[in-house]
């Protein structure tokens, strides 16, 4: 006999957040209608959805522009971040000398340095990408370095006892052991790459063919097209959620056989 859907963990995992979201939208719509708030102050979900339909092509182009910067920045942040981590674990001296500068990137407000970067780099896509990389790289460096250092000391001793070289230690022990930390970093970094891209677009205020979602928001707010603004905002948040979900899926794929974070446990 089939078990009721409510007992199906996978179904609940998907249905529960969707139900909460739909309930929220329903309350929002009712509240907007009941209070008669003007759509240029707070549009209801249905108005936002029709704005999305009406401006679909514009919004899609803007989304693709933002996604291009996001993915480019994310890929660079991952490659550069992992390279930095591999450099840091070569010696405590290197880590001590360079790590403060990695923190510097994390604590410097991107809004403050974005104008400079946009002046320095002529190409818009690359200037936005650099801003987004600065936002996204720190979690990769921090988590991966932590993972590469968090090796079971007994396993490390065993590698030393069998006279394993540094390369063998890295490939066979440190990198596989660091994967859960690395994927943890990716979850944070993917969202930050998107935020970095959007913030940089706000500062750059790039319009025309290279307009991203941030420019859509700016433009819509200037012309009081608030439903369109909400539609662009919604696309950003949905993209962020999808990126995070993609990272969770990748993490589960890589770790499902051995790491607690990705394993199903039965009591």
């Amino acid at each position: 006999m089939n078990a009721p859907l409510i007992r199906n963990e996978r179904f609940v995992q998907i249905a529960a957040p969707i139900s909460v979201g739909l309930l929220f939208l329903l309350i929002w719509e009712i509240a907007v209608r009941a209070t008669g708030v003007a759509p240029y102050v707070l549009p209801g979900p249905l108005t936002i959805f029709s704005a999305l339909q009406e401006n679909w092509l514009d919004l899609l182009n803007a989304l693709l522009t933002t996604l291009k910067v996001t993915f480019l920045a994310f890929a660079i942040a991952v490659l550069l971040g992992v390279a930095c981590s591999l450099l840091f674990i070569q010696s405590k001296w290197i880590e001590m000398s360079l790590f403060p500068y990695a923190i510097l990137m994390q604590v410097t407000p991107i809004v403050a340095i974005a104008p400079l970067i946009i002046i320095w780099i002529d190409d818009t896509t690359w200037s936005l990408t650099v801003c987004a990389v600065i936002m996204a790289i720190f979690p990769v460096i921090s988590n991966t370095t932590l993972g590469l250092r968090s090796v079971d000391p007994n396993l490390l001793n065993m590698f030393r006892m069998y006279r394993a070289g540094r390369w063998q230690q890295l490939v066979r022990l440190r990198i596989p052991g660091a994967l859960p930390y690395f994927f943890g970093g990716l979850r944070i970094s993917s969202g930050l790459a998107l935020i970095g891209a959007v913030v940089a677009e706000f500062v750059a205020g790039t319009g025309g063919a290279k307009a991203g979602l941030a420019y859509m928001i700016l433009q819509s707010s200037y012309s009081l097209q608030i439903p369109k603004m909400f539609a662009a905002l919604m696309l950003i948040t949905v993209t962020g959620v999808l990126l995070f979900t993609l990272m969770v899926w990748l993490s589960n794929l890589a770790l499902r056989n051995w790491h607690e974070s990705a394993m199903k446990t039965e009591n």
Partner: protein
Amino acid sequence: MSALKLVPESVENPPVTNGPKTRSARPVIQARHVDKIYANGTVALQDATLDVRQGEFISLLGPSGCGKSTLLRIMAGLGDVSAGCVKWWEQDYDVVGSKGRKLAFVFQNATLMPWARVRANVRLPLDLQKAAGEHAERRIDTALEMVGLSQFGGAYPRELSGGMQMRASIARALVTEPDLMLMDEPFGALDEMTRNKLNDDILRLWQANGWTIVFVTHSVYEAVYLSSRVVVMGARPGRIVEEIDIDEPFPRGPDFRVSQRFADYCRQVSESLEKASSMGQEAAS
């Protein structure tokens, strides 16, 4: 060293011996007046002198903090000594790993790579020593068979029970065909039945393969059951207090566990432990 033996034929008709009468056998490890003082000033080991001879099964027994694991790690070359010296097969540590002078270490926890299947874990020492090939595959098969895990080569460590994980860890040590096995309280975390079973297994393998074993344990019963010699250690500072020969023939089985002789040896070792403990308390006060 000869290839690993798959014991069973020798277990059915095992040669009854009194264990290696090893006082005259070739020394495998010679520790002389070894001190180990950690950077924070803790004296983990003081003036430890011990000979481990070919074919012996020695247990290092003592309370927590008596330096037995420290001494074992020094024997494995995993730690420097603060004073004194250690020789392996009458030479410096560099000799370890060469033919007839192979060393394996079994940790307190199974210490398996969780991301690798059992077979890959067992293969690891061979991969690190770049000893892959058909011969290596046979050695892995043999090692898994010896510990009864032939059917579990494709499993991940998390899919095994604690006892099976420990067996996999032992198989990883066996695959190098070691001459000296250093075991740091390997069965401490297991239930008594599994522990007894693994004790019998390790005795069987030791007898069949002619290894030398140094075995760290907290348990008087385990030490007496397994060893040809029990080295009693005391704490604060860690030191060797007494060496007691267990002059009892091998193989040993359930009969020995319930014999008067077993009880007598346990009493003798326990008294020695108590003496060591009271000496430590006096020293501390």
